[in-house]
């Protein structure tokens, strides 16, 4: 199913769809309030965006600098050109440490690489320790939101899952009770794990350190108890200097959840005595995206999820409607770069309202890139599929009444200048739940001719 089909299914349960919309709007609203308490908010966004411009324009140098400093600090650095290599590197580290079970804090990058499935196939038990991620892991689902992985589930559903998996009281929906059950369950896992895996929020070239931000403290519970810490990092997560962390940490949590800062912002510079830290630097299409002039800004993303919370489409269609690892507006500009055919409906899952670009803490011109992807998709349609989705979308143009109901000379004039590839079809969709405007006795042009010429 493509996005419109999945969205329609999501909207069938009206009450749930309304709840989903309101829950995410609540997060967006918190973000609005807290961002407006910072007078320099817009200047900070601009500064962050410019720092990322610098990063992207000098990425090779920064990666080399980061590697040099990290190595000097005693961190082991690995390079992976794609997901497969990334997963092999991680498995290899686990095998060297004779490790059959790991704890993992939230990392969208490992979702992108489908690391869990790979490790499980190779006999490693993976426990996601972020509460939301653990919940969806119990259901064998991916996160539906990059910051709020289980945002699509209600507490009654979580209660049922926990009753099933953790033996909690049936029918006890109290979030505190359920969270405490997860705390006890995961604490056992933390205490038992020899290797802990985390994502990376920022890697600092100047110092070779990296920063991991969480609210629950799960990343730290994992890595400080384990002997080995494996940190998986997209190459675009580099920032030049430590002082730049000040800019990004001011923006990240405020944009993500409306908090002034995440609870735990851990700076890892070198391993504790007797322990190991590994960093895996992953490309997986990022250098490709960097080479696309119109789309490279998407690599500025700091994964705050604000564009999802604000998006009127995401809120009303849910994360799964996108069918991509990163859903929502940012996902819709990242995913076509990875698989154009599979994700060709995503850039059209937008009204181009621009709210995503205005909330983005690093000022990615998301809605403009959605527009640009539409241009690319229609160009590629013969190569991706002759009867592609994109064509269907384009054909939708003339089923909007102002376009198809026109008998006037103006539209005929326009039509002469337009390609014939765009055909009349799907004419009735507009009128399913909307009345058509009444056709007036005379058009403006008729009036003008009569009264003004």
């Amino acid at each position, binding site marked *: 199913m493509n996005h419109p089909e999945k969205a329609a299914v999501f909207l069938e349960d009206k009450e749930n769809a309304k709840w989903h919309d309101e829950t995410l709007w609540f997060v967006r609203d918190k973000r609005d309030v807290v961002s407006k308490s910072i007078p320099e908010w817009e200047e900070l966004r601009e500064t962050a965006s410019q720092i990322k411009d610098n990063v992207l324009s000098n990425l090779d140098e920064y990666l080399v600098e980061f590697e040099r400093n990290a190595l000097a600090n005693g961190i082991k650095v690995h390079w992976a050109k794609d997901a497969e290599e990334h997963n092999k590197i991680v498995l290899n580290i686990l095998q060297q440490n004779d490790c059959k079970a790991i704890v993992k804090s939230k990392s969208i990058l490992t979702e992108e690489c489908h690391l869990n499935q790979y490790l499980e196939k190779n006999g490693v038990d993976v426990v996601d320790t972020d509460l939301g991620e653990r919940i969806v892991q119990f259901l064998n689902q991916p996160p539906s939101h990059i910051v709020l992985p289980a945002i699509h589930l209600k507490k009654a559903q979580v209660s049922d899952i926990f009753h099933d998996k953790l033996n909690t009281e049936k029918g006890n929906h109290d*979030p505190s009770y359920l969270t405490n059950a997860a705390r006890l369950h995961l604490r056992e896992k933390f205490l038992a794990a020899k290797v802990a895996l985390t994502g990376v929020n920022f890697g600092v070239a100047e110092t070779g350190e990296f920063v991991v931000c969480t609210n629950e403290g799960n990343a*730290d519970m994992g890595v400080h108890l384990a002997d080995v810490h494996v940190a998986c990092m997209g190459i675009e997560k580099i920032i030049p200097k430590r002082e730049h962390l000040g800019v990004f940490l001011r923006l990240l949590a405020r944009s993500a959840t409306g908090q002034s800062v995440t609870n735990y912002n851990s700076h890892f510079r070198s391993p504790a005595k007797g322990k190991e830290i590994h960093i895996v630097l992953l490309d997986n299409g990022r250098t490709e995206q960097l080479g696309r002039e119109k789309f490279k800004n998407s690599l500025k993303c700091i994964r705050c999820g604000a564009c999802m919370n604000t998006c009127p489409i995401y809120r009303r269609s849910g994360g799964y409607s996108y069918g991509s690892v990163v859903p929502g507006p940012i996902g819709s500009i990242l995913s076509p770069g990875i698989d154009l055919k599979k994700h060709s409906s995503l850039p059209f899952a937008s009204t181009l309202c621009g709210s995503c670009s205005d909330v983005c803490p690093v000022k990615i011109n998301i809605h403009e890139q959605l527009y640009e992807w539409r241009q690319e998709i229609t160009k590629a349609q013969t190569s991706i599929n002759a009867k592609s989705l994109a064509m269907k979308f384009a054909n939708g143009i003339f089923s909007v009444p102002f376009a198809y109901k026109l008998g006037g000379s103006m539209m005929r004039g326009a039509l002469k200048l337009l390609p014939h590839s765009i055909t009349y079809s799907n004419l009735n969709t507009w009128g399913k739940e909307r009345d058509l405007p009444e056709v007036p006795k005379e058009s403006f042009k008729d009036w003008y001719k009569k009264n003004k010429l």
Partner: protein
Amino acid sequence: MNPSREYILNKIRALRQEVVEAPIIPEFEVAEDLVSTFKISSAANKGEVIDREAFVALLESGQYPRIYSTAKGFESYTNITVPQDPHEFSDLSLAVVEGQFGVAENGAIWLDEENLEFRILPFITEHLVILLDKKKLVGNMHQAYAKIGNTKSGFGLFTAGPSKTADIEQSLVIGAHGAKSLKIVMI
């Protein structure tokens, strides 16, 4: 040479991008009253600022059976044998550590490895108390990083409150994995 390393770097180099200069971070105004701003920020994070007397009363209340303190002047409150293996902290009731400085705009406190003894300490403990000198407050995160400068410790942490989650229906729950409470003793 590592082939993937060369592959990635060469792909970037082949783009022959012109380097865009990094901006200078502007100097932003900060709150005049750092102490009260810090307290407000901390309360928003569900932390609690208390004074020394309240803290001593708390320590002596008997509600924390297993205490470990690395804070200067409060070492004597440690009532456990300090373990070799940090896993043994799993039933710690209270950890007392010293914070290097606090940030008024968001209530974050910088903890450096040297204040912790064990990196796991502020996470694994059931309750956390951080001692903070009220003269050691900065206004915002820019000042905070200026203060950290090029310190070369192996691990540092900005912590801003007790462990929290809102992963179940956006209902805020305190005490996900880490400390269930954070008290900041301002001296």
